[in-house]
C-alpha cells in the first residue's frame, strides 16, 4: 500500500508540474500584462515594463523563476489589484471552502440515503420519483436552477407571505457588517448550498443506487440472508460497506473538481471565492493570478485523487495487499 501510494504521489507531482507548464505558457500566450501600455507614445515605457516583469527573457527562464518562487510560497503580485496573489487566493479559498463544506456534507448524506433506498426498494414509486428527480438534476443548467431558486425562495416567498424583507438572501455570505456563525449566515448560505447540493445529489445517488444493486444481487448477501442475519443488518453491515467503495472514489474525484468548479455559483451569489477571483482575473487579463489559480485548482484535483486511492484501500482490504 505504501509503495502504491508513493508511486501515485510521485506521479501526481509530475502531472502537477506538467499542468503548471501548460498554465504558464497558456496565460503568457493569451495575456500580455503590458497590453495597457500599447497606446503610450514613448515606446521605451513598454520596453522598461517588460524588462521589469522579466518578459524579455526566454519563456523557459521565466517559468523556472516562477516555479522556484511558487515552491517557496511566493505566487507573485497581481498586476491589476497590486495585492500578493497568495493572499488573494487564500482569502478566496476560505469562502469557497465554507460553501463546499456544507454542500458536500449534505450531499453525501442525502445521496447515500437516496441511493440505498432506491436500490432496496427497486422499481417502487419512491425509486421512480428519485430517479426522475436525479435525471432532472443532472440535466438542469446550474445557473438557471439558481435563477429559479432565487425567484421562488426570495421573491415569490416574500409576495406570498406578505413580508417586507426576504427570508433568504442571494448576495454574499453575510449582511454588511455582520460576521460569524448565526441566523444571518444561514439565511445567506441556504441558496448557494441548495444549488450545489442538488447537482451533487443527482449524480452521486445514481452511483450509490447502481453500486448497491450490484452488491445486493451478489451471492454473499444471499448467504447472509439465508443464515438468518436480519435484513436491516445485511443492508447496513454487509451490503452498504462494499457498495460504498466505488461511490467514495467518485465523490472524492468530484470534490477535488469543486475547488475550481464553483465559478457559476459564486458568480451568481456574489461570493468572493476562488470562482469569482477566476472570472475577474480572466476579464481583467490578470496573468499572474490565472497561472497560480490554475495550479492551485489542479493541486486539489490531484490531492483528492490521492484521497480517493486512500479511501479505496481503507474500504477494500484487498487493495492493501496488492
Amino acid at each position, binding site marked *: 500500500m505504501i509503495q502504491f501510494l508513493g508511486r501515485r504521489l510521485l506521479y501526481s507531482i509530475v502531472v502537477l508540474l506538467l499542468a503548471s507548464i*501548460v498554465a504558464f505558457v497558456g496565460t503568457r500566450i493569451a495575456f500580455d500584462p503590458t497590453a495597457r501600455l500599447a497606446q503610450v507614445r514613448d515606446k521605451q515605457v513598454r520596453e522598461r515594463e517588460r524588462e521589469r516583469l522579466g518578459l524579455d527573457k526566454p519563456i523557459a527562464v521565466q517559468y523556472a523563476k516562477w516555479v522556484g518562487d511558487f515552491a517557496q510560497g511566493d505566487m507573485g503580485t497581481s498586476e491589476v489589484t497590486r495585492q500578493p496573489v497568495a493572499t488573494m487566493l487564500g482569502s478566496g479559498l476560505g469562502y469557497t471552502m465554507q460553501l463546499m463544506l456544507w454542500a458536500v456534507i449534505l450531499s453525501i448524506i442525502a445521496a447515500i440515503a437516496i441511493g440505498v433506498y432506491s436500490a432496496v426498494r427497486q422499481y417502487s414509486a419512491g425509486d421512480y420519483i428519485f430517479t426522475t428527480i436525479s435525471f432532472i438534476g443532472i440535466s438542469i443548467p446550474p445557473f438557471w436552477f439558481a435563477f429559479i431558486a432565487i425567484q421562488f425562495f426570495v421573491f415569490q416567498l416574500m409576495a406570498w407571505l406578505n413580508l417586507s424583507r426576504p427570508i433568504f438572501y442571494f448576495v454574499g455570505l453575510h449582511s454588511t457588517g455582520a460576521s460569524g456563525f448565526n441566523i444571518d449566515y444561514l439565511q445567506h448560505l441556504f441558496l448557494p448550498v441548495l444549488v450545489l447540493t442538488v447537482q451533487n445529489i443527482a449524480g452521486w445517488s445514481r452511483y450509490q443506487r447502481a453500486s448497491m444493486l450490484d452488491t445486493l444481487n451478489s451471492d454473499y448477501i444471499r448467504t447472509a440472508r439465508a443464515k438468518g442475519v436480519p435484513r436491516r443488518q445485511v443492508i447496513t453491515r454487509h451490503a452498504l460497506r462494499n457498495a460504498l467503495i466505488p461511490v467514495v472514489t467518485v465523490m472524492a474525484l468530484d470534490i477535488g473538481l469543486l475547488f475550481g468548479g464553483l465559478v457559476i455559483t459564486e458568480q451568481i451569489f456574489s461570493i468572493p471565492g476562488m470562482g469569482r477571483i477566476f472570472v475577474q482575473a480572466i476579464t481583467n487579463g490578470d496573468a499572474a493570478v490565472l497561472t497560480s489559480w490554475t495550479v492551485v485548482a489542479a493541486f486539489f484535483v490531484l490531492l483528492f485523487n490521492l484521497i480517493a486511492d486512500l479511501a479505496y484501500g481503507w474500504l477494500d482490504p484487498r487493495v492493501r495487499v496488492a
Partner: protein
Amino acid sequence: MPIGAELGIGGIDGHKPRSQWQLFRSRFLKHRLAVFSLILLILLIFACFAANLVAPFPANQQDLVIGAVGPNAHHWFGTDELGRDMLSEILYAGRTSLRIGLTVAFLSTLLGTLVGAVSGYFGKWADQGLMRLTDLFLVIPQLVVLAIAIQGFGSTQVVIALSLAALFWMGEARVVRGQVLALREREFVEAARSIGASPMRVVFRHIIPNCLGPILVGATLAVAGAILTESALSYLGFGVQLPATSWGNLLSSARGYVGTPQAYLIYFPGMMILITVLAVNFLGDGLRDALDPHGSNG
C-alpha cells in the same frame, strides 16, 4: 438472410436467429422513455433548423409598441423588452445550441475513440503517452482552458465548438481504451491478425464496431455536456456573442429579470435547455440498455 443460415445453422427450436440489429431494435423500443425522447429530439431539431418555416414570427422582429408582455394566445412564450416573440427567438437560437452540441459530440467522440483505440491496441509507449495526456486534460480546470482559448482566439462559434470538443474526449478515450484492451485478446481479433489483416484493418473493422455501444452512449453525454457548458460560458460572457443567439445567451441576457414581472423571460430558454439535455440523457440511457450484450434478448 440471418447470419449462419447459408451453413444451415438454425436458431434454437428452428426459429430464425435474430440479427444484432433486430435485437437492438426490440430492446430499444421497450425503453418507452428513450423512444419518446428520440421522437422529441427529432421534432426539436426539425423545429429549430426549419425555424423560418415553423416559427410564428420572423427572427429578430421587434414590436416596440407592445414591449414585454407575458405568455398569451398570440405569443405563447411572451415577448421580450423589444417586443420580440420569445417562441420564435428560442427556435432560432436553438439552431446555434444544437449545432454546437452535435458538432462537439461528433468531434470529441471521433478524437476520443481514436486516442482510446490507439492507446489500447498498441499499448506500450503510445498508451503511456496518450493516457498521461488524458490525465493532464482531466486535471486542468475546464473553464480555465475554455476561457483562455476563447479570450485568445475570439468567441466565434467555431472556436467555442473546437475548444469544447478539446475538453470532452477524455471520458470516451478511457472507455474505448478499456474496451479495446479486452477485445484485443479475443479469438476473432487473433483470427483476423493471423490471416494478415493490417493493424488499421483490425482496429477499424473488427474492434471498433464491437465498442459501438459505449461510444454512442459517450456521444450522447457529450451532446448534453456541450449544451450545458455553452450556456454556462454564455452566463460568464464567454459564450456565443450577440447578435448570434443561443439558448445560453438568451437566458444570460434575461438574468436581470429575476424577481420582476418579466421573470417568464428566464423560464422558457432554460426550460428548452433542460428538456433537450434531459431527452439526450434518457436517449443515452436507452441506448446503453439496448446495446448491452449482457442484456436480455427482449
